[in-house]
């Protein structure tokens, strides 16, 4: 186990890279759709499209989405490195969840804030950018950190399209050395601290938010 450990470190870095790039890209897509979803009415065309998109993402397994990205992108003439196919698949998946996250936190912001900024003569766009979204991001952070841990777990599925991340690298080493149990245990040991670490950060952020809101309640 000690011998192969260094050989698993570069793939571990690939796992982290692919997850966090996707998290970052999906964050902005989610924020965009989430804010449009929460401002405009239900039957706005963009909303209908984004609701349909979220429904597709939430109701299909991630492995299907990864196969779809892998098989369909070349069909429409986009030829990418397998790493970026992975990034696109995970971004596609995560953006669906993050749309829901940002929609929930933007709608949770008090309606009075919109009215207050209207009286101050701000347009809807400036209200969103300067007033609403900064507050919403604070509320989104715990859920986003949770999403990060989901993504790290989901990135293991990218092994099916032969992206050399941690799981795939371990499979390759298993083929060479036939030490199945040792390599699987090693993988578990490498994944556990990262995944549990991110969800621990999520719970700290959640507690932080709860403390602040309870203080505000007391002040009232």
């Amino acid at each position: 186990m000690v011998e192969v450990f260094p050989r698993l470190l570069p793939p571990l870095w690939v796992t982290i890279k692919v997850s966090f790039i996707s998290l970052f890209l999906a964050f902005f897509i989610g924020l965009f759709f989430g804010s449009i979803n929460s401002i405009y009415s239900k039957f706005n065309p963009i909303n209908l499209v984004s609701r349909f998109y979220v429904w597709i993402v939430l109701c299909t397994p991630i492995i299907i989405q990864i196969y779809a990205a892998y098989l369909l992108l070349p069909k429409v003439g986009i030829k990418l490195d397998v790493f970026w196919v992975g990034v696109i698949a995970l971004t596609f998946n995560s953006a669906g969840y993050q749309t829901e996250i940002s929609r929930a936190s933007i709608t949770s912001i008090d309606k009075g804030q919109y009215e207050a900024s209207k009286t101050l003569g701000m347009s809807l766009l400036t209200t969103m950018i300067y007033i609403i979204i900064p507050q919403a991001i604070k509320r989104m952070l715990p859920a986003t950190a949770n999403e990060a841990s989901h993504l790290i777990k989901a990135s293991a599925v990218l092994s099916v399209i032969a992206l050399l991340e941690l799981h795939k690298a371990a499979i390759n080493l298993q083929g060479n050395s036939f030490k199945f149990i040792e390599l699987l245990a090693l993988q578990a040991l490498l994944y556990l601290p990262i995944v549990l670490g991110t969800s621990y950060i999520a719970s700290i952020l959640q507690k932080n938010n709860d403390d602040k809101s309870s203080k505000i309640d007391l002040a009232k």
Partner: protein
Amino acid sequence: MLDIDFMIEILPRVLKASLVTLEISFLSLFFSVFLGLIFSIIALSSGKLINILIRCFVEFTRGVPQLVQISIIYFALPYIGIYFDEFWTGVVALSFIGAGYTIEIFRNAVLNVDRGQHEAGKILGLTKYQTLIYILYPQIIKRSLPPITNELINVVKASALLSVISVNELTKIMNDVIFEYFVVIEVLLEATIMYLLIISVLVYISRYFEKRLVV
């Protein structure tokens, strides 16, 4: 555009595979609820050491990717001398993954029941086990239904991963058909529609339970 005739031609295979997916999901849910009930009773009624062990198990199922857990079960079962076919290996793996979540569902539900009921049970001279089994669990079954349906949705999604250990469920059949006929879009679309149907129905059921049962 889409080759509808081909889609109809492969429909029987896809339907059969969807049945396998459903079969695996329900069997695993059944076993994981069973395991969750037993282990949550053990966790709630025993001392620190056993609680720490169960906690470790729960954190393990949460912290390790499902795909890695499936391969661990796939390789570890023969290692300790248990030989199953792929189908049952898949069921064992998904039950193992699901149990981590069901333990937490039941444990939280019991801890949310009013504290007074534990004390009332004690005063009536019931042991810890009796209080749990006769008084607390009947009340939480109703409350646990929505999270359990959610868990079923997760299990259906996780069952797609079993294609890597060549269980003949929907994703595996989809892959086989794609590489048999080299038709991508139609097959992907059909498999996606099957999953959407199955999971949307389950989501609907879970919403229904949430509205009706939780007071």
